[in-house]
């Protein structure tokens, strides 16, 4: 019987049992991925602390191949009996599944463990510390300006270990710690309600927790968007903050460089390797070895070493992101981008999506603008397949001849992300980490703004 003992040897032993059990039931290949974690979370609601939540999670996902057919079973009951049933069921599901000759598991290769993703002090970071951090964030936002209203927010501290083993001899484990926080709401002054704003922060180390900074950014954004004015429709420049770029650009690029989307013919980038997809101002990479982003870790969901993958270099498309399955379909090598949790078979996913810093400062990006809008947030729809976007500008500020004039309201923005990338005319040196994206300010020309 499992007794709440999460020491690594115990879990590693269960993984070995899972693989042996699956093989004894007839699996040709077997993989076990387990994750244990301890989480403490505090919620903020309506300018007040709401409640605390803590949990201990552990679960295992068993993937098996029988003659090229896939089976998968996941459980969070980690007894020896439960593992035996799970392995049996995974094999049973595989026997009922159609064959797919591209199914395979990666072989054993060297994995160097990253530094900078686990903070030992997280082991003593308790729910009272999480409560203090949440209270500090709330207080910082409220004391910045009385007009600030915090609708909701949270602070989460998590630490845990990921384990992976397969029948090709891979046996890996890694400890990870993360601290993350969010705050959202608006400013209210005499019945005038500002745009809604949302800010977040994240770090692997407790000493890098910066709730004050995030709260101040949030408070600045909402108070800065009070007293907005209507403007006429025009065509001009759009300067996206890192948060707005995350909402408008990030998902489209992540989708388009995903080999699964490419193979399903739902990526706009299919067939465009070596072609120009943007002006030369932008270089994009996926890099799980960058420990500033929360997506950092040493190995992927299948146990392949993470690495830095340059996907767009100076505007030219260089590569797609693969896991073992999609790589085999095209006869290429995996890029270490197998993703997913213990509760599903591996998918293809980005880790940390990073846009390299540009040459301009944020101030010079603004001062060079003839007529345009700085967009802090975007609320609307983005179609990751064809790149079309349309929505409402949130926290927008009008710029004319290099001067920031005033906040704007009821402005719609619509266009196409792929077209916009060809009109990208400025990238800032300054960047912001948004959970697992690291993005600069980005300026685009020839964007259509419509008065509402």
């Amino acid at each position: 019987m499992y007794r709440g003992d999460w020491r690594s040897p115990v879990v590693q032993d269960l993984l070995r049992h899972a693989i042996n059990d699956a093989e004894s039931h007839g699996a040709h290949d077997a993989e076990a991925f387990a994750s244990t974690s301890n989480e403490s979370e505090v919620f903020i609601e309506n300018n007040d602390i709401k409640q605390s939540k803590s949990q201990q999670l552990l679960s295992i996902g068993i993937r098996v191949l029988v003659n090229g057919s896939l089976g998968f079973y996941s459980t969070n009951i980690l007894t020896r009996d439960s593992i035996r049933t799970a392995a049996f069921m995974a094999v049973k599901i595989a026997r009922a599944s159609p064959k797919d000759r591209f199914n395979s598991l990666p072989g054993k290769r060297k994995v160097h463990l990253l530094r900078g993703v686990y903070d030992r002090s997280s082991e003593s970071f308790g729910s009272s510390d999480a409560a203090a951090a949440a209270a500090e964030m709330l207080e910082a936002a409220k004391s910045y300006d009385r007009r600030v209203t915090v609708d909701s927010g949270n602070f989460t501290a998590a630490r845990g270990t990921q384990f992976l083993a397969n029948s090709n001899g891979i046996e890996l484990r890694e400890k990870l710690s993360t601290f993350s926080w969010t705050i959202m709401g608006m400013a209210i002054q005499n019945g005038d309600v500002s745009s809604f704003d949302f800010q977040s922060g994240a770090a692997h180390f407790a000493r890098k927790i910066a709730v004050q900074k995030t709260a101040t950014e949030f408070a600045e954004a909402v108070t800065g968007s009070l007293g907005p004015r209507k403007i006429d429709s025009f065509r001009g420049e759009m300067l996206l903050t890192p948060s707005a770029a995350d909402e408008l650009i990030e998902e489209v690029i992540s989708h388009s460089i995903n080999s699964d989307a490419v193979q399903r013919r739902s990526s706009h980038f299919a067939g465009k390797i070596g072609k120009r997809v943007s002006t030369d101002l932008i270089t994009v990479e996926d890099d799980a070895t960058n420990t500033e982003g929360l997506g950092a870790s040493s190995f992927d969901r299948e146990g392949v070493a993470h690495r830095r993958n340059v996907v767009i270099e100076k505007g030219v498309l260089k590569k797609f992101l693969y896991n073992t399955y999609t790589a085999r379909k095209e006869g290429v090598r995996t890029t270490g981008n197998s993703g997913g949790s213990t509760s599903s078979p591996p998918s293809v996913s980005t880790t940390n999506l990073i846009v390299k810093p540009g040459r301009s400062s944020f101030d010079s990006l603004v001062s060079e603008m003839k007529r345009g809008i700085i967009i802090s947030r975007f609320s609307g729809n983005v179609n990751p397949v064809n790149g079309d976007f349309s929505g409402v500008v949130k926290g927008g500020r009008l710029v004319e001849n290099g001067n920031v004039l005033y906040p704007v309201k009821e402005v719609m923005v619509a266009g196409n992300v792929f077209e916009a990338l060809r009109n990208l005319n400025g990238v800032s040196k300054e960047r912001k980490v948004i959970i697992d994206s690291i993005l600069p300010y980005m300026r685009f020309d020839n964007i259509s703004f419509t008065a509402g």
Partner: protein
Amino acid sequence: MIKDNLRASANSATRKPRVTGLIDDLLSLLSSSKGTSYCEARYHSRLMTEVIFVNGDLQRVRAVENAGCGIRVLVDGCWGFSSTSNMEPGALRESLAQATSSARVLAQVKKNKVKGLADSKMARGEFRLKASGNLRDIDIEQKIKITKEAEQAARKHSKLIKTASSTYRELLDYKAIVNSDGGEVEIHDSKPEFSVVAVAGKTSQTATAHEGVGITGGWNDLFASKSHLDYGVEAAKRAEKLFAARHAKGEKTTIILDPGMVGLLSHEAIGHTVEADFVLAGSIARDRIGEKVASEMVTLVDSGNSDNADSAAGTIMVDDEGVIADRTVIIENGTLRSFLHNRESAMIFGVPSTGNARAFHYNDEPLIRMRNTFFERGSETLYEMIKETSHGYLAKGARNGQADANGEFMFGAEEAFLIENGEIKEMLRGASISGNAFEVLKSIDMVGNSFKYDIGTGYCGKYQPAKVDGGGPHLRCTAVIGGLQ
């Protein structure tokens, strides 16, 4: 605690917790609680099985077992919630201590304390939701086979169908809930769903059709009205027709909503605005109890039972605070009567809980959520409703919807039929329907005499997913029909 019921047979995945022992253990856990004004332990074990085929390929197959205990306490007017998958008595006590101590710490910085929990009808005993054809007795081979065949049937139907996908998913749940206010209940639930999506045409010009069913029930209930192949063929037929259809012209006009659209209206446009936590945050329904908010023909209900028709997907019988999840009349003959409550909000409003506290997994805390939300029947036939419409549309096939706290809503209808001089003229492509919820409610002038639940394949998202349903008769109202969606 959890005894594996392992037989080397086909269906050995199912495990039956030693039920009575579990309730006793949870009760003894509660009795060890110190310094709490309320304490609740909810064991929830779920087995989810999912099969997805896309264009002839198995895109995903998995079974996921997720079980554990969520413990919630009220200490000094502040909630603490803690969960663990380890059901050993020591681990449970540790989890309880964790919830208690963190609530106590948080209470020191919390300004608005929880005043208490409303007295409500606590459930006791064992509840088993109705199901014909136990899903555990249907082999995984069968689930994979029908999913594959339905997807194939959609693509084989016509050369115009370029893409198709099909999904089978089931949630098998067992819960044991005890609390310090006398709740002591076990619940057995089974919720399967099956759907097919067919896309006609090539990349630039396409038309998409969905055909699916999501219920509370068993295998026989799931395929009671149609076979798995029918779902594939019907999705393909509709996609093919939609491909050839024109777009609707944008206008504010008379619209007859089918039961699925009526379900979406009940859930998105009105249901959310009467969830008491949204009411307290300032939704449009605030301070309007007793007011006339709709036409006299309108009676709107949210129920934890499957009223009027069988197998509604949002059926729970008992909520996750252990409260009997009865029928709640939200609007009675046009007058707003009730909000949807958990025990905390009910206390604030001075009423009993309506049994709307729901949690998706053991490690989620209960929130105010809807169940089956529907309009009551009227007396008109659909034929009469069409006949009495000189110009308008019949909107069918509920798609995704959005609604704001101010009652503004927009949803998609998969197909619309133009009505001229009391006759259906032409099938049109999917259109969006928008308006203000309470204005649309006031404009209702004909209510149909049939009844159907039809949004059971969807999940409602509010921090956590929830399985809900909605429906009603056909309704005739005035709203804006848009062109493209």
